[in-house]
């Protein structure tokens, strides 16, 4: 079997609502794939199905035997007030090798190596809340890396972060990819992230299109994926997506300020 993971007409649902419908997908060793689509399009479910925590109700998911998969959640879902240091958070991933509660010397060393590789070497004893946004994201990448994965899944690794942090996180992810790790990530950021990835999957419950950014970042495909008009320009050979808000733009003056609605006027006390 060449593929790491292969979906064959996979359908998943939560309750009565189908979340993924007839999805065909293949992840090859060393690939870097971005999943794009609107909120509720099944991106996170697709990652969980790849990882094996969501079972399909129809179709087949084949995983390479013995494959180790790392999963990095959205940082918004993390409980930042949980009493846990960076080292404890990273070592959490070690659940199979050792039964004793405390980590072995080897485990501590390996965790330290992973932390240093991700630029977190001096922060092992800090509480996770005391880190910057990019460092926090890297802690959870480090946790996934400690499981020695062949495939790393990242659920919106750059959501809610500033441009510099996004650059910082993507730099780390690209480095891991260059070291041979297969990566699948979900993102809402078409210009900042998706257009820079080797392969994209446009998802809206079903796969709308898959291919390189040049092949799939096209108005008609994006409109089918997002259900909204999106204009695509080319800049230096790369596709750039323009979001259109005609009600905010004056054709002659450029951007305009919408007049306040009656009920938005302030009334003097």
């Amino acid at each position, binding site marked *: 079997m060449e593929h790491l993971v292969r979906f064959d007409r996979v359908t998943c649902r939560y309750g009565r609502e189908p979340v993924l419908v007839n999805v065909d997908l293949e992840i090859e060793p060393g690939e870097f794939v971005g999943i794009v689509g609107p909120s509720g399009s099944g991106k996170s479910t697709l990652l*969980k199905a790849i*990882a*094996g*925590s969501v079972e399909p109700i129809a179709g087949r998911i084949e995983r390479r035997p013995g494959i180790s*998969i790392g*999963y990095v*959640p959205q940082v918004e*879902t*993390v*409980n930042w007030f*949980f*009493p*846990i*240091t960076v080292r*404890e*958070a990273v070592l*959490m*991933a*070690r*659940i*199979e090798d*050792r*039964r*004793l*509660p*405390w980590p072995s010397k080897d485990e501590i060393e390996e965790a330290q190596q992973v932390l240093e590789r991700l630029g977190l070497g001096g922060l092992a004893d800090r*509480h996770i*809340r005391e880190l910057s946004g990019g460092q926090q994201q890297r802690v959870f990448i480090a946790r996934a890396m400690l*499981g020695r994965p062949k495939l790393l899944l990242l659920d919106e690794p750059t959501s809610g972060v500033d441009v510099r942090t996004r650059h910082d996180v993507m730099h780390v992810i690209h480095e891991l990819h260059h070291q041979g790790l297969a990566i699948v990530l979900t993102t809402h950021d078409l210009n900042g992230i998706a257009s820079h990835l080797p392969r994209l999957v446009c998802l809206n419950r079903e796969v709308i299109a898959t291919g390189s950014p040049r092949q799939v970042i096209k108005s008609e495909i994006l409109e089918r994926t997002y259900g909204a008009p999106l204009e695509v320009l080319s800049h230096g050979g790369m596709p750039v997506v323009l979001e259109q808000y005609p009600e905010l733009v004056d054709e002659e003056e450029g951007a305009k300020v919408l007049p306040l609605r009656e009920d938005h006027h302030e009334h003097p006390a």
Partner: protein
Amino acid sequence: MSTLLEPFHYEFFQRALVVATVTGALCGLIGVYVVLRGMSYIGHGLSHAIFGGAVASYIVGVSVFVGAVVWGLIAALFINKVARRRSIGADAAIGAITSASFAIGIILISVQRTFVVNFEALLWGNVLAVAPVDVLVVLGVALASTLWVFLRYRQLLFSTFDPEVAEVSGVNTARVDIGLAIMLTATIAATMSVIGVTMIAAMLVIPPVIGRLLTDSFSKMLWISVGSGTFCGFVGVYGSYYLNWSSGGTVVLTAGVLFVFAFLFSGWRRRIPAVAAEHVH
């Protein structure tokens, strides 16, 4: 010196001291997971829910302890299941399920009038009337719980911190939840008649909160919680002998005093970097 050792001459006191100290440690251990899962009220709720099971098993004629454990376990698992629905929080699930279970107990009593309940004893227990068998049951539950937490430490931590990713990473979170529910229910059933509902509820919450106030590390929180639970159980019962106060009440009050000190200390500790930073600027 002989005055300090005087209470140890009484067997009933020795038993009370052992049970209160071990219960303090046990609640400190299990309570960490309870508090961090946002289920602080489950101790109070389950001890009410178990009451329904105790009455039902008395009427049916089976062991009250076994009946209470089975009943409490069903309630705890149901709470877990309901709380996982995002539209319903753990607090609401605990409130709904345990009150209904308590109501079943009340109705059964009203139908079967031979069951007489001393509500004051239920609230505060009677640690000075501990029978030797009670000591063995509490020690057995404490040993089993400690062993289980020791062997499942990593899975418990992962599923408490991040259940979704734990599941993806190969932790059987449903099995961990069931294990925790069994330990919690057994703890409450074993200690309820001895130390009372109020002390269980308090000791499941206060020692972990003390630990949380004093550290940002999970493993340290666990040690501090177990240590302060043990301290409060011992000092509370020992002190109650001389003060002639309710032993359950004294244990909880000791925990309350420790909590205040921990709260003040954590506030003072947090101000240190702020003051240092002011000097720098």
